[in-house]
């Protein structure tokens, strides 16, 4: 496949060749560009740089834990590493991951628009992203040592430690602002820039998930902004807000932190769910099952996801009533997530499935996300939570959702869309092998954490009892396999993007708008107004009998 280039009538220079500003070529034609596609690519590369750093930190953490006691680094460095790993992975990789890269690139195309509604604001969010990233790097490199608070910055420790907490706080604040501006841009774009024939229920599901995500970004992120600002003010000026010595309530900090950070989990997972909803119909040659259910479940997840934050704090000393209420709603939020999984599986039923790399990553996503979801329910149960809170069971759970879910969603999106973005195809065989290695390594890395966490291995501990060592060894070996897989995968993608065979307009046979335009897309996406008559996943030509699903 991919070598059968469609006979296109004429090929215009793509966005990779045409600059939007006076600089025709070079770095300035990129970093001053307001083209949504170029900004998406800029996000992609800056994000991957941070990802590499954070993976390396994760590797070091795992290596340290291969044996009890000191192995390669001292305890303070260990604390700083897991803090940086968390901050970089969360604020610089997973949160911007799908919306800022693939959302920026494909959202306008998918709704039949030339660009986002505020292109200059879009560029500004990228600058804020980079600027925030620089502060994160500064907290690493400045004298005093990088922050050692964990990515949650819990008070009172974050107010009292002498490490560089302030740059890290500023980094998170700026990155939050960047995320808000992206969200604001997307909501307005979806409301205002849709093609006149693109009604709400003709929008691809990725766009729906971005819409739900954007609302969380706009409405929840300011809370973390002000909370982190308060911690910063408390550190610098000694204003009494959260410090118990001045009458403050550290549990209130935890409330405010999780009011954002729990919905943030849905900022991370919802776009990945959108990607899955895009890929499954294409590789099953089937219309999506239950389009409206998937679309509305995104909104439902966004809404209910904002009501469950305190399940992170069951052992922090809340009132019994609060524990009961938040535990209950935690169970409710699993319903829309399950709806999505059922609909994806139903879409595949009787489809003609093609096991290309994007689809394989989606399969891993569904399995791993389900494991992450189920263990999430275990943690949401009050009684079990007391037992499992702050053990490596929790670490395994959120890595299953965040990495096994969103991370694999990002990999799936890369394999699905990068050929469109660069017009070249990677090596499919190597990609399939890389998928196998990554999936095996990933599960070997995190599955042992469930077991040892259940047996009582606390999270974030530098040292541990000898009885946990077999699990730690298994986990560390898993991390090596995973990293080998990641290296193969990214090398393959990189070589593919640079030198791979030129690909056609529609290598996978997708039906959404991005597959109906030139590869790589031209500057303002559409040469002529696209014809939008059917829904986004019209595979009726492949289906033998008439379907009742929309």
């Amino acid at each position, binding site marked *: 496949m991919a070598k059968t280039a469609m006979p296109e009538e004429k090929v215009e220079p793509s966005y990779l060749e045409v600059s939007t500003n006076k600089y025709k070529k070079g770095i300035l034609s990129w970093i001053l560009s307001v083209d949504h596609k170029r900004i998406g690519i800029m996000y992609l590369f800056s994000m991957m740089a941070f990802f590499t750093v954070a993976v390396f930190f994760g590797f070091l953490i795992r290596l340290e834990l291969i044996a009890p006691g000191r192995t390669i680094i001292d305890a303070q460095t260990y604390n700083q590493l897991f803090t940086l790993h968390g901050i970089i992975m969360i604020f610089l990789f997973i949160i911007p991951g799908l919306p800022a890269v693939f959302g920026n690139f494909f959202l306008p195309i998918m709704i039949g628009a030339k660009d986002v509604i505020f292109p200059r604001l879009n560029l500004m969010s990228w600058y804020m992203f980079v600027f925030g990233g620089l502060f994160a790097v500064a907290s690493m490199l400045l004298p005093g040592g990088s922050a050692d608070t964990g990515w949650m910055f819990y008070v009172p420790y974050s107010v009292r430690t002498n490490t560089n907490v302030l740059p890290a706080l500023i980094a998170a604040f700026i990155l939050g602002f960047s995320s808000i501006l992206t969200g604001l841009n997307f909501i307005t774009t979806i*409301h205002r820039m849709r093609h006149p024939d693109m009604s*709400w229920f003709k929008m691809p599901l990725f766009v729906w998930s971005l819409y739900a995500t954007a609302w969380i970004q706009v409405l929840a992120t300011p809370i973390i902004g002000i909370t982190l600002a308060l911690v910063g003010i408390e550190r610098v000026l000694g204003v009494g807000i959260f410090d118990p010595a001045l009458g403050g309530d550290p549990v209130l900090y935890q409330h405010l932190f999780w*009011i954002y950070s729990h919905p943030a989990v849905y900022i991370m997972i919802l776009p990945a769910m959108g990607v899955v909803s895009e890929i499954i119909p294409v590789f099953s040659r089937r219309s999506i099952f239950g389009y409206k259910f998937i679309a509305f479940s995104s909104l439902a997840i966004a809404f209910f996801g904002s009501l469950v934050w*305190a399940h992170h704090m069951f052992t922090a000393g809340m*009132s019994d009533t609060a524990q009961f209420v938040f535990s209950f709603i935690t169970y409710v939020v699993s319903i829309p997530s399950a709806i999505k999984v059922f609909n994806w599986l139903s879409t595949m039923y009787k489809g003609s499935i093609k096991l290309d790399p994007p689809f394989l990553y989606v399969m891993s996503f569904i399995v791993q996300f389900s494991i992450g979801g189920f263990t999430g329910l275990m943690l949401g149960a009050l009684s079990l939570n007391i037992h499992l809170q702050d053990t490596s069971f929790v670490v395994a759970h959120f890595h299953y959702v965040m990495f096994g879910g969103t991370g694999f969603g990002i990999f799936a999106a890369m394999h699905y869309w990068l050929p469109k973005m660069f017009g070249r195809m990677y090596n499919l065989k190597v990609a399939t092998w890389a998928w196998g290695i990554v999936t095996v390594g990933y599960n070997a890395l995190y599955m042992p954490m469930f077991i040892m966490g259940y047996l009582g291995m606390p999270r974030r501990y530098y040292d541990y009892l000898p009885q946990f060592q077999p699990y730690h060894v298994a986990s560390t070996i898993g991390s090596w396999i995973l990293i080998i897989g990641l290296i193969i995968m990214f090398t393959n993608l990189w070589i593919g993007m640079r030198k791979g065979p030129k690909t056609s307009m529609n290598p996978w046979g997708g039906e959404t708008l991005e597959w109906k335009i030139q590869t790589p897309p031209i500057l303002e996406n559409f040469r002529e107004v696209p014809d939008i008559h059917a829904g986004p996943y019209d595979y009726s030509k492949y289906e033998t009998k008439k379907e009742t699903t929309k």
Partner: protein
Amino acid sequence: MSEHRHEESHVIEYGNYIFIWLGLLAFTGITVTVSGIDFGNWTIVIALFIACVKSWYVLNYFMHMKYEDKVFKLFIVTALVTFIIFLGFTFWDYSFVR
């Protein structure tokens, strides 16, 4: 569902603004006066109620929400409901025995 791409500007006369402004000043006067009287726990409720009324006028007239499309109204309700949930659910914790 889709919003029309229309652009009609609604001109509000100066007189209306002055009228609203006088009303707002009157409410400010009331809230200052009432705060001097001790209603116990109701004092804060009354103060917040008056503040809400004032905001309602500012939103609708000064900020032209009254003349905006339905979408804008839906947006603002979403934002306010979100905030009330954040505030209210926090009190699930604080207003019960910990």
